[in-house]
């Protein structure tokens, strides 16, 4: 979970012009921002530029920034805004391999399950299934199950209400249900350890 106290200290140091604090903030959050950004744009060049712009911008304008107790949320939100801005101002032909924008395809889930066995392949089929979800559902899945953001935080970030978040999650998990139910029993056995038999 978030370490609020050290977040504030780190942020304050950065605001005061401490380059090490700035580097530390980058270290802590760039990986996540990359994963998130790539999920919602599917465009590597774009996300590079956005992260570059974002961090350069906050460094240059640190004197105008206010304090925050959640650096992560601030960065996620700023990145999201930046991506929307860029998307709106650049022509769509520049967006190559824009995976997340693809319309949900008519995948036969049963087919995917039957064709692919084994752990790696299972991961692959779940991955494909996620990529075939509509963009907002993909974003929500990413935020919930990779970045571990709660419903409230997701609602605030995506600027929708809690109920919408829950609905979207509901729909996406329903879509992916077939994949969870097909997982081999041998994995269940290894999880017995976690639950103490």
């Amino acid at each position, binding site marked *: *979970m978030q370490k609020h106290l050290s977040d504030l200290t780190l942020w304050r140091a950065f605001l005061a012009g401490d380059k090490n604090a700035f*580097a530390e903030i*980058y270290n802590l959050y*760039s*990986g996540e921002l*990359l*994963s998130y950004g*790539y*999920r919602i744009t599917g465009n*590597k*060049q*774009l996300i*590079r*530029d956005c*992260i*570059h*712009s974002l*961090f*350069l*911008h906050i*460094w*240059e304008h640190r004197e105008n920034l206010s304090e925050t107790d959640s650096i992560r949320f601030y960065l996620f939100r700023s990145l999201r805004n930046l991506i929307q801005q*860029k998307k709106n101002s*650049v022509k769509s*032909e*520049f967006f*190559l*391999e824009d995976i997340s924008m693809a319309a949900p395809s008519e995948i036969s889930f049963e087919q995917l399950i039957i064709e692919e066995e084994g752990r790696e392949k*299972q*991961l692959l089929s*779940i*991955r494909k299934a*996620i990529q075939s979800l509509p963009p907002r559902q993909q974003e929500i*899945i*990413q935020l*919930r*199950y*990779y970045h*571990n953001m*709660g*419903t409230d935080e997701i609602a605030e970030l995506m600027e929708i209400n809690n109920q919408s978040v*829950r609905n979207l*999650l*509901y729909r996406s*998990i*329903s879509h*992916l*249900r077939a*994949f*969870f*139910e097909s*997982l081999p029993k041998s*994995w*269940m056995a290894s*999880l*017995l350890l*976690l*639950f*103490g038999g």
Partner: protein
Amino acid sequence: MEKYASYGYEDFVRDDDFVDWVLSPTKESDLFWHSILDKYAFQKENLKMARMAVVRLRDALKEAGNHETSLEIWSDIQNSMSGRSRKSTIIRRNWGILGVAAALALILISYAQDFWRSVEYKNTLVESVADGVIVLKNNHTVALHRDLPDNSVVLMEPGSEVRYADGFSAEGRKVTLSGEAFFDVVPDEKRPFVVEAGDLRVRVLGTSFRVKEGNDNVLVAVKTGKVSVFRQKDSQENNAEDMAVLKPNEQVAYKRGGEGLEKTIVPDPMPVTEISNLPGFSFHNEAVSRIFSAIEQAYGIEIAYEKKVLANCRLTTSLGNETLFEQLNVICAAIGASYEVQGTRIIVNGRECL
């Protein structure tokens, strides 16, 4: 709490507290969920399935190769912050009084530039697509990293331009370069990576190297791996005269209309093995031959000298952070010798030590 009694496994998957426990467990949440299991033992299967589903989701959402990309972006950010291109100005020694003034002037000028230049990083690289060919051009004043369709990365110096077929092709990965760039290529045996720079073709499987294409000449320098460089005129790669195979720390400079391809050592050789893995770069009264041997191993570059002449030369030194040539300077100064680069070898000339 009671709601958990009637949860299906999907409900657990959608439960904030449950997911939080699976993804970042704490002592408290651990205790909590084990107590739930105790209380509602009949939910065991559902809890197990839900846990597995969340873990699989997390694993499926993970993207590989983020760390390198993170580092590259950081490097680009640093470049932008200092407003300078990656290759910093080399200040030569022995400039004399006039030289000092010139050096000062240089520093003053770059300060002024930093001050007036807008540090705001405005737009992306100019990127255009026509007939399935992608053109990237770096109009900025700093070097920038870009991803290629196979996840290879190119670091483009200011003013450089690359072109390639969208998505590369099934047969190969071809990039046309004008200007200067550094390539970090992902291995792919089935698709050789070829850089076209002027008349030259640089062909690799997976490696990292720099190509500098100018008006009259082309320079290719290898950092890791191996590349073969050949001239386009002869479409046979097998023409020995016009082909060179480069190893790390080797480079080749080709002059348009020139004779052939001459291999030399790059100006800034990097160790090809982890220094810490080597026998020891700290020497106490060590025979110079051992020291040279250690350096050869570290850089993959041959050092030639007369063993008999230098047999008695011993040295106490530790060569940590210096560059190869600095290290050679130190050693040669200590034993009264000198060195020169001949092709891809280093020749050391010295006298007997007492």
